[in-house]
């Protein structure tokens, strides 16, 4: 049901862009909305980070996933339990670039064997790790590849990236490997929300919608490139116009391209207000981005507020009888 609602949303977006651009709304879909969406993305993303950052980190609470730094002859797990800023950078880099925590994922299974009773077994499970890693990296490559519509002249490294991506040289224009992988990865990520009973139970509309929206973006992009082709030169002209604040739309960009563009705009505008902000949020996560040097360096809590203590003097009075009974001679200055 939640998936269906999300699908309807995405299809609706497709229809809006298709009909709208055909009905003479090229300027809206080619200029106004891209600017608006990009602005919302920039401001929204920054605002969200600032919003989080306005709350302090009162305590240093890293999750330690390895041996601490203690005695010199005990080997510290530098990346799982960093003790210095540099080691934290290492931990964060592994987390952000390679999804290290997810790499360690396991799957628990209850097995029932005769004469033994139920038994929990745990196995490594790299499936989610590999699929999400593929999705994120291919999406990044695709994003970078699109720079060719905005950079003039197209730099050599960008051509090289495209050529590497089109390494197999099948089809005309050459098929990008990332295009195939990103659809596969998104498809699997979507599929597991249906087939994995646990994931199904936790999924919300706001989980299906971004997945389907991304699939919409990717599929419409593929259509525009391989099937219902558009005028690439016109697209690039539009890119240049947008960059130089020239508010005109070249002719010859078909509705299919506006659909793609509109879905991208939706994604951009939706990004800051959705779970997609994990992209920025992961950098602020206090269980990952802090060194476990708690006993070495004092962490300052800006609101460390006073609390009512039970003072020694009061305690001494309240338990005077017991203290005398114990024969303590409690001294103090």
């Amino acid at each position: 049901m939640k998936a269906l609602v999300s699908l309807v949303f995405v299809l609706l977006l497709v229809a809006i862009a298709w009909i709208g651009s055909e009905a003479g709304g090229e300027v809206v879909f080619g200029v106004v909305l891209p600017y608006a969406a990009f602005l919302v993305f920039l401001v929204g993303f920054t605002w969200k980070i600032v919003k989080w950052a306005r709350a302090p980190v009162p305590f240093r609470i890293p999750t330690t996933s390895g041996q601490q730094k203690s005695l010199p002859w005990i080997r510290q797990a530098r990346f799982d339990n960093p003790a210095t800023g540099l080691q934290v950078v290492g931990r964060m880099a592994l987390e952000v670039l390679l999804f290290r925590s997810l790499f360690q994922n396991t799957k628990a299974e209850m097995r029932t064997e005769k004469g033994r009773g139920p038994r929990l077994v745990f196995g490594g499970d790299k499936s989610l790790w590999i699929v999400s890693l593929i999705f994120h990296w291919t999406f990044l490559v695709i994003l970078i590849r699109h720079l060719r519509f905005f950079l003039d002249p197209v730099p050599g490294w960008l051509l090289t990236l495209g050529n590497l991506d089109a390494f197999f040289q099948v089809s005309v224009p050459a098929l990008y490997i990332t295009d195939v992988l990103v659809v596969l990865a998104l498809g699997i990520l979507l599929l597991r929300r249906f087939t994995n009973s646990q994931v199904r139970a936790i999924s919300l509309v706001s989980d299906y919608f971004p997945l389907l929206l991304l699939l919409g973006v990717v599929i419409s992009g593929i259509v525009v490139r391989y099937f219902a082709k558009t005028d690439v030169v016109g697209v690039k002209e539009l890119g240049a116009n947008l960059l130089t604040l020239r508010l005109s739309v070249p002719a010859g960009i078909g509705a299919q391209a506006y659909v793609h563009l509109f879905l991208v705009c939706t994604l951009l505008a939706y990004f800051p207000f959705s779970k997609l902000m994990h992209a920025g949020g992961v950098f602020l996560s206090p269980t990952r981005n802090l060194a476990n040097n708690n006993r070495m360096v004092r962490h300052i809590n800006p609101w460390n507020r006073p609390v009512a203590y039970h003072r020694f003097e009061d305690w001494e009075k309240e338990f005077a009888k017991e203290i005398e009974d114990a024969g303590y001679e409690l001294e103090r200055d």
Partner: protein
Amino acid sequence: MYDKGKILAGIALFLVLVLFPVWYGAAQGGPGRPPDLVVGTDAESCVRDTETMRISHMDLLDEWRNRVVRDGVRRDEVSGREMSLTRTCLDCHADREGFCTKCHDYAGVDPDCWDCHNLPEGAGHER
């Protein structure tokens, strides 16, 4: 603890990266306009209309190659001309640099036509 400095630096880095095309354009003196192409002069018209050629010339060339190499057909039924990149196309569009390359460079396209059709520079029209 707020880590204000680090977060502001992070936001700045984010904005710099996301707005990369703007900086790039500024450094290059602004993105150029679409190139003026040197169109051929010999023929009255192209094998297909301009709109089709702009968008899907690669499909046509792909189709031509298949028909010639696989089916042994050499003549294009629509235009009546020989299905040949080097002879038909480059006959008119003799200035490969000024036509094919210029536009491909602009759009950041790096086709592999010339991997096989290996012509001496400017030799297209002599065939």
